[in-house]
């Protein structure tokens, strides 16, 4: 059993958990993920390692409540236990001194991009961070990201904070300004990563994305997570989750992400019916 030692509500439906898992924390590196299961009937769901504390033996995950499992997770609190927690899975980010890099985090993607930005800066890179959210109240970890980057740029889709625009707008400006950027790392919703890739392709700027395909075991045993990269089939859980974004077949990914949509809708409807609308969003809740 794995104890939740800290819970923080970063934004409506966006939770941070610090989970006691010393063996995972000992080895965790930027770019890797864990798979957890709440209880004996639970689904195995992957979450990126957003931070780790080797000395304290904890892993930080940030997750968005999108369906049954993440809602049920969001209803847990400090001191509660998760039945299963396995990691660190996947390959760590490749970290070296490239010179100058840009790290883009969109929405919940700010969390996984944070340890990568930090590692790249520690390796001697100039790191331009770009973060964005739909609206001000969904933006989180601005200060944390600022400390991990040489420079941080912020935007909101609706202009409710700093400026109006998408992360891709800031990215274009940064690339134009910097000229010498040699790598872009982009993590966020699929459409955002796709948009980033079509932009950086114009500039011939190598771009790494982190793919969150549906997974079961996370050890290369089932093939559920397969994605097409450069015309070849890869297993995101063991060959990734990071890939060269210019080679990823995003269309296929998007289709595979909704394979279980009818079942997911049924599960969440049943959950809300049985538990009430106890999610932490600001929608007013209630049945």
């Amino acid at each position, binding site marked *: 059993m794995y104890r939740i030692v800290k819970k923080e509500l970063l934004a409506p439906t966006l939770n941070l958990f610090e989970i006691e898992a010393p063996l995972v924390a000992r080895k965790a590196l930027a770019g890797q993920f864990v798979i957890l299961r709440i209880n004996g009937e639970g689904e195995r769901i992957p979450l990126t390692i957003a931070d780790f504390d080797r000395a304290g033996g904890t892993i930080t995950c940030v997750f968005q409540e999108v369906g049954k499992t993440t809602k049920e997770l969001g209803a847990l609190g400090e001191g509660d236990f998760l039945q299963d927690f396995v990691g660190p899975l996947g390959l760590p980010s490749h970290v070296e001194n490239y010179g100058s890099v840009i790290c883009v985090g969109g929405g919940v993607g700010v969390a996984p991009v944070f340890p990568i930005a930090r590692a790249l800066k520690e390796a001697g890179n100039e790191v331009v961070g770009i973060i964005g959210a739909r609206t001000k109240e969904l933006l989180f970890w601005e200060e944390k990201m600022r400390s991990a980057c040489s420079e941080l740029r912020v935007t909101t889709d609706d202009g409710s904070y700093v400026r109006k625009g998408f992360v891709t707008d800031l990215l274009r400006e940064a690339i134009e300004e910097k000229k010498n950027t040699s790598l872009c790392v982009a993590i966020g919703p699929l459409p955002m990563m796709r948009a980033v890739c079509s932009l950086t392709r114009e500039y011939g700027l190598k771009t790494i994305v982190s793919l969150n395909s549906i997974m079961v075991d996370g050890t290369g045993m089932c*093939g559920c997570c397969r994605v097409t990269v450069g015309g070849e089939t890869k297993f995101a859980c063991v060959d990734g989750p990071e890939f060269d974004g210019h080679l990823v077949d995003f269309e296929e990914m998007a289709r595979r992400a909704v394979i279980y949509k009818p079942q997911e809708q049924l599960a969440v409807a049943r959950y809300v019916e049985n538990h009430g609308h106890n999610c932490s969003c600001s929608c007013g809740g209630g049945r």
Partner: protein
Amino acid sequence: MTGGSKPKKTIVPKKNPMPSQDPFLRAKNFNEVALGYTEQAVVAEANRCLQCKNAPCRQGCPVEVDIPAFIGLAAERDFAGAIKKLKEKNALPAVCGRVCPQESQCEKYCTLGKKNEPVAIGRIERYCADWELANGVLPQQVNPPTGKSVAVVGSGPAGLTCAADLAKLGHEVTVFEALHVPGGVLMYGIPEFRLPKKVVQAEINNLKNLGVNIEVNAVVGKFAVVDELLNGGGFDAVFIGTGAGLPYFMNIPGENACGVYSANEFLTRTNLMKAYRFPDADTPIRVGDKVAVLGGGNVAMDAARTALRLGAKESWIVYRRSKNELPARHEEVEHAEEEGVKFAFLTSPTRIIYNSDYWVIAMECLQYKLGEPDASGRRSPVPIPGSEFVMDVDTVVVAIGQGPNPLVPRTTKGLECNKKGNIVADLATGATSKPGVFAGGDVVTGAATVILAMGAGRTAAKAIHAYLNGDS
């Protein structure tokens, strides 16, 4: 009677039939198909055994169970004695009695089988093991602690057997398992209706009672590499039994479309994650009306039978060769047929066709004929040019085999592997190219059988014991 010669037995030509669920009903549920002998039937079956002095049956059993001895005890209704005898050689009799391919192992060599049906050795074995599980497990003897400790990587039959034997010898054993439950293929692959999961867990509890420590959620190569277990991890030796869990695909166009599963995913969702109970269990699975399972082995039969139970209207086995070459156990093929699984022989897909939403709608196939025997001794399939045809299907399960998972080999320095990625190990000892590291089961041999994996675990345990005592 004088001179000590026993009365000559009357030969009973046929096996006592195994009671089983009605095919019609069982094709819709996940309960065990074969119900097990009654006490009366098991005694009758045990009495069919001729108690042959040379016991030819034993040479067919990879772990050399003393077959006449345990059957003799069962005939006298001494089931406690019978199970004790079995366990001298076989750590998982409730599993083996159910899933061993007896027709090509012990029963193949049975004297009775020359002219009649062989003794149903597996069914008697199952009865004795189930008897023990129902009546309380007899404690097994464990030697005093040796102060040595061994890490076992993977909790399939190879790892579990190796762990049990080492624990009985007094070594401290920790099993590391990547998934959230131990058992390997016994838990995630072989379906509930052939091998109930509570039977597997009961066998695993027996191991825990021997003092074996099982750590789940522990992926070796990730939370620690083999070298770390040996140096600083506190282990004196390591056994690798990580199985053959890497699913092969056909590499034909359309294979990543929605509705195409590897058999591993299809079976893992169903068995390990209990998707057949969705939404009471959280993991979903999607099965359409017409399912095509590619392949002809046990795994393919399991997938095709599972598909029916998940509600498919039609479930097809699509196999390149003919019925005679099917590598699956005869009994499994028969069960599949009884339940309504259909077979498209001499057929193989060339392309999976999908709609604009990326969902499978059909498969383009090619017809084959049988040519000369190939290296495996089976007649090889030869495609017939121009024989393309389209088969309408909405779910495809690829069950054409598995390779070794590369996680451990890739992260272990100095561990020799062959071209296919299998760990190279001495079959007589399990020793690998790396001192203190032993391996066995599917990761060495490629996908094989439960009992062979157990045999390899046992062999390695002996060698590890010798290694720890410094006599090698």
